[in-house]
């Protein structure tokens, strides 16, 4: 089975936060919890670039390694999910994650972190597919519906790609290949004009 991946094409990302809002609206994520964020570097300067970041669904996910209660698990298709009923909110996954993906809503005991919340690749959680409980705890299960995650589906410029890693890589490779072509390609004017 193919493994799923996200890829954000930084040459296409326009920092519109459409992915962020789509994710929050679609999954009813509480304010303050960011399953996805857009990061901009060199804002307002030459070379400004933006990238949309969320859980990368790592092949060898550090969060799974550090979880003391084994609440985080990986599906066969590579999607990393958390079981919110098992999670104790210790925050170790956040410390292990290189992307700042795990998020913690405020719990109600001593300001403790609630169960970890993160990007589910719109694949719900361990509960039964399309159950009310799954929707309540994790949001939509678009993968079970055969759809791409909301963020990628909503991306205006198709900067954010999601799906089978091989296909995503092919799409991106084709784009990169095309970018050097056309009349402004390096050497074009020498070869055809002068």
């Amino acid at each position: 089975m193919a493994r799923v991946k996200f890829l954000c094409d930084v040459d296409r990302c326009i920092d519109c936060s459409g992915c962020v809002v789509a994710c929050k609206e679609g999954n009813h994520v509480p304010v303050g919890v960011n399953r996805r964020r857009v990061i901009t570097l060199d804002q307002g300067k030459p070379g400004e670039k933006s990238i949309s970041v969320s859980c990368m669904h790592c092949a060898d996910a550090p969060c799974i390694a550090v979880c003391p209660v084994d609440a985080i698990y990986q599906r066969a298709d590579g999607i990393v999910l958390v079981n919110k009923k098992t999670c104790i909110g210790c925050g170790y996954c956040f410390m292990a994650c290189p992307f700042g993906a795990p998020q913690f809503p405020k719990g109600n005991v001593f300001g403790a972190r609630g169960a970890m919340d993160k990007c589910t690749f719109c694949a719900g959680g361990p509960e039964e597919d399309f159950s009310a409980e799954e929707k309540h705890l994790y949001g939509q299960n678009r993968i079970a519906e055969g759809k791409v995650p909301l963020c990628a589906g909503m991306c205006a410029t198709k900067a954010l790609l999601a799906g089978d890693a091989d296909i995503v890589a092919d799409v991106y490779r084709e784009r990169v290949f095309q970018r050097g072509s056309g009349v402004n390609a390096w050497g074009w004017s020498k070869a055809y004009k002068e």
Partner: protein
Amino acid sequence: MTNSLNDIRHAKSMIFIGSNAPEAHPISMQHILYAKEKNNAPIIVVDPRRTKLAAKGTDYVRIRPGTDAAFMLGLINAIVTNGWEDKEFIRTRVSGYEEMVAVAKDYTPEEVENITGIPASETLRIAELLANNRPTSLTWCMGGTQHHIGSSITRTFCILQLVLGNMGKSGGGTNIFRGHDNVQGATDMGILADTLPAYYGLAEGSWKHWCKVWDVDYEWIAGRFKSKEDMSKPGFTLARWYEGVLGEEKIYQDTPIKALVQWGCGSNSNSQYTRVKRAYDKLDLLVIVDPFPTMAAVACETDNVYLLPSASQYETSGSVSSTSRQIQWRNKVVDPVHNCKDDYQIMELLVKKLGFAEPFYKNIKQLPEDITRELGKGSLTIGYNGQTPERIKLHMENWHTFDVDTLQAIGGPCDGEYYGLPWPCWTEEHPGTPILYDVSKSVAKGGLPFRNRFGDEMKYEASGRVENQLAAKGVCNPGSEVEGGYSEFKDVVPGTNWKTDLSQKTIKDAIARGMAPFGNARARCVVWNFPDQVPIHREPLHTPRPDLIAKYPTFKDKPDHFRVDTRFESEQKPDLVKEFPYVITTGRMVEHMGAGAETRSNQYLAELQPEMYAEINPRLANDLGIRDGSMMTVESPEGAKITVKAFHTERVDEKTIFLPYHFAGILQGKSYADKYPEGTAPYVVGEVGNAVTNYGYDIITQIQATKDGLCKIAKA
């Protein structure tokens, strides 16, 4: 837009002036970036700010606000000097060219540098870039129009495209991205102060035409006005309606405005908002129809305010026009929730109460389809007659059969038609016109020449030259009976022309003969009915360069300009810059929309942009001791003063302050947040940026000059 968003995919270069597409039109970026990647097309961004579009662009040119016309004329001059103009296109399809070049030749690269701040070498480089990468898609937005010479600036954009021969070509054209959903449709329907629907104007003939469409007696309509003179007199504009209330300027109307209905209008996009607020307080009646209470609803402190909650777009259906002139059908998703009603219901109740429901709904039995039918029947000028509700719905249902590149359906029930039947769509068989003024296709297949609107011949004041305004011999759409220019069609049905012949015989006849109903003429570089026949640069009213006023002065004051006196010359004070040394410009951010009543009421968007701020260059800020994230004041020459958070960024240069205009709820430090009806206050309130935008209005359209005012700032 002469072309469509999708057609930008064919551009070999793109130039954006006063347009920040990633923030204002994020969806358009997919086509823009496609052209950049696929065609290796340079994206040239001309803007006072290094915008998010500049981040995606290949070439960024920082321009002083309000000097766009000078840069454009400089480009034209550079192109003509180097012989890069499209000589054949100009010979056959452009008029007044020599007169225009005579004006443009004064804008040497050095002079352009002096006016705009753009290095002379950059002007030449950009000119060469445009010349070598044709066709160019040119886009402007409010950054190009909201100036006191906005109408001249936009004309220079068009003339540049004519000189480069980029009009009527796929990948070229002037593509003005419309700022709101269905704003193209709203404009087409005549929300302007000086025209009936479909740009018919206000002349008696126009009224008679529409009375025929509505099937009501013209005399009855006329009887509802005070006089026939009033009927044909342009009204107050959105930019200055409040002058009709306040009585502080001389107005040309018998009584001041006493009642105001704002239907889907976020009022804080009005400049000089402190005056707008005073006008609200003076009104006898204020009615606000909106899904969310607007700033007007709280800023008006009398109890003569009525809020009518209207349905959102998801709670109603009907036809809408996109920026690409495509008509689409919107379906209802849910019934109106809570106590709101959709716009049709509100209008119906209002009309019934006012007692003219019978004539009003004469042609409208089925909502909203009959509305689309009725407006299509009358809107012949822009060819709205071919888009019947049935055809529009068919397009929506067969969305997947249209090609993303050409917008043309391949097979299926809409085979050969262009998506959304972009107007003009002359007949019910016409496929729509995807690109305006494209003579490579026959008119029946969506081609068009330039419109013949201003006579067949003209003698120019400047040169004394007489020029034929019709297209040159040999230039016409394929299959045209007349091989060259021809006048507009009239008297096919006696007493009518193509615009007023409701039987549409004139239009059908013309198309059958392979010709455009509106004739085949040249595009004008000289507009003899405008104050500047050839557009020129004029310094902003409130200019940071008073030394340029002598050479580029503004216009004489204009009395009775949309019923109110408008100051130009008397407002251009050279000393103003001493007290107000910084340029203030406004614009959008991607998270909020328009006046922001809707987006500030969305918790997630509010979370992303929770605060009003002013962009300030770190160097300027540090010189003035304004720390990043601390509060600063911005004060306008009109005396308004706001306190906002300073945001250090090099997006703006050291002389410019940028304000987003989406925030409302606080005006000059006074919060109105508690005045919202219970449970309707937006998550985010902030200072109204437009409180400090300056006086200044376009000489033709009276659009407000929000992009090039002056201000002073201080640490708060």
